[in-house]
């Protein structure tokens, strides 16, 4: 202990947390291994994949360009179409769900209307209805209405986001002061104008959060489009890759050249999500952690 107090503490602190840092490093390794495997193996052709080389390292030739070319030309360029479909479903469903959730959440937070208590209790109950338990009933209903196998069969059900309403309500109650709304009303602004001009700018953070959560959950959706769609030109990328995967598994060795495409297709499909995730993380955390903070 010849060093000063401050330095002494600094010297002690580093080794104290060393074991925890090692634990963290091992955890990071575990959580990243699947990503690493996909990055490495999407560079291989089928010979490299099945040749028995190191599964966690690159083989002698790197085939990214060749595999990309195959991915985007296989089945007449179906993969690009799947990506576009995913984007369409995610944004149409996500934006629609967000608009509805913001309107309803604001309505619940700022108006006293007949039946509000009952409606809000029902909403809270709906937050707990398992989403996939609704898929087959919705499918049966839509098939009666002749709506299955259309883009609407995927977009319409994703408009329902009770948790988004709950989130906006929670935020609007505290973030939008009643006095400000009253002031706008006194100035003669109508209710909708007050909402657009006064409340909406204040709700911006929660709007971004709800939008992000809705877009990502519909991008990641699998069960709903799997149930609704038959025409493979309407598939989102999750269902498409699932289809290729089951084809490749079923036909065994005959489907082996398909595996390189599937692996690269998996990688390409998650890149937009990883970028969105890393660049917008503060919005993620806001939405995910609400409710845990009470």
């Amino acid at each position, binding site marked *: 202990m010849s060093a000063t107090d401050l330095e002494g503490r600094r010297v002690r602190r580093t080794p104290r947390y060393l074991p925890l840092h090692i634990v*963290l490093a091992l955890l990071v390794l575990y959580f990243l291994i699947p990503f690493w495997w996909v990055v490495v193996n999407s560079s291989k052709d089928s010979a490299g994949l099945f040749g028995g080389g190191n599964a966690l390292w690159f083989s002698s030739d790197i085939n990214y360009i060749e595999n990309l070319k195959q991915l985007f030309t296989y089945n007449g360029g179906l993969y690009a179409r799947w990506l576009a479909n995913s984007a369409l479903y995610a944004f149409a469903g996500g934006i629609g769900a967000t608009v509805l959730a913001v309107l309803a959440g604001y309505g619940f937070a700022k108006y006293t209307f007949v039946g509000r208590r009952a409606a809000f209790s029902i909403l809270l109950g709906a937050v707990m209805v398992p989403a996939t338990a609704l898929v087959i009933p919705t499918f049966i209903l839509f098939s009666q209405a002749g709506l299955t196998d259309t883009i609407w069969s995927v977009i319409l059900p994703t408009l329902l986001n009770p948790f988004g309403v709950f989130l906006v309500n929670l935020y609007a109650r505290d973030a939008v002061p009643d006095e400000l709304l009253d002031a706008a009303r006194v100035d003669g602004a109508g*209710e909708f104008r007050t909402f657009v001009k006064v409340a909406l700018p204040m709700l911006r953070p929660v709007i971004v959060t709800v939008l992000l959560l809705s877009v990502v959950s519909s991008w990641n959706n699998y069960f709903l489009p799997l149930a609704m769609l038959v025409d493979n030109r309407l598939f989102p990328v999750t269902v498409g890759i699932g289809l290729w995967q089951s084809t490749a598994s079923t036909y065994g060795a005959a489907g082996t050249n398909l595996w390189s495409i599937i692996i690269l297709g998996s990688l390409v499909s998650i890149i937009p999500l990883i970028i969105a995730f890393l660049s917008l993380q503060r919005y993620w955390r806001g939405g995910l952690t609400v409710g845990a903070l009470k």
Partner: protein
Amino acid sequence: MTASTSGPVPTKGGGSTPLPDDGMTASTTGDVQTTKRRRTNSRQNVAGWLFVGPFGIVFLALLVLPIGYALYMSLFQKSLIFGTRFVFLGNYLKAFSDPSFLGGVWFVLRFSVVLIPVQMAVSLAIALILDTVTSKFARFSRLMIFLPYAIPTVIGALMWGFLYSRNFGPIADVFGAFGASGPDFLSSNLIFYGLLNVVTWQWAGYYMIILYAALQGIDPTLYEAARIDGASTWQIIVRIKIRLLTPALVLILVFALIGTLQFFNEPKILQQLAAGAIPDDFTPNMYAYQQAFTLANNNYSSTISFALGAVVFVCVYIFMFVTRKRGNFLS
């Protein structure tokens, strides 16, 4: 919106109930003149319903209607001899004596009982570590551990399926180097653990973030006070941190329970890779899917969906009711 720093999201103590008392709102709109108040109330009524209405329509059309229709469908049976006839609870009696359905329920219950404690322990341990260590590497780790949450479950399951695979996974290589044959997580003996690992990998980071945010919300002076009273680090973790995390842990338990009981995506994706280990009636949702799509038996499929949804809903509601005194996210 970083909920932990900005005020709007209710924090401990300063929280409010989801619905402010009607009296409170009325007092802000002014109770000077009753006529004015009456006019305000009718204006509030109309405007309130106009804002909530569009969502209400979607809610009725895409939640109430499908559930009601499934309930209706589940009361009928279709057969070649009798055509479609009303059987009241006949389908439910059939479901609750159908080994496929009961087997699926038994599997998801068994899976939940193992998965949820494991997941909670892992995410709690990571959150506690990240609450203690504040280095740059810890912040990086937090992000990387959370990353799987952003990945579609389909792709997550597929990536692990590749890793498990005998053809191109590393497990065979690693064990082969020692002259042993590695475990096959896609065989019917080990698929339970294979799936356990996939789900833990996918969700532990999400739960960790919830717990971490709750930990960050705890007033640090509590730790100082405890330390002055002679509490050890371990005592602080158990007596203060974990105790104050209870609402967040309840939230996680509910999310995990809802998710696991309706298990579908991961086993469906691994079904082809794990040849034979995952039958079509592996989970209740997969069984309902098979009934609807392979066998075109909409009545029975509706029955299973409705029974599953009702079971989940009732379980969760009872659970929330029992734990409401401890504080949960809906109280």
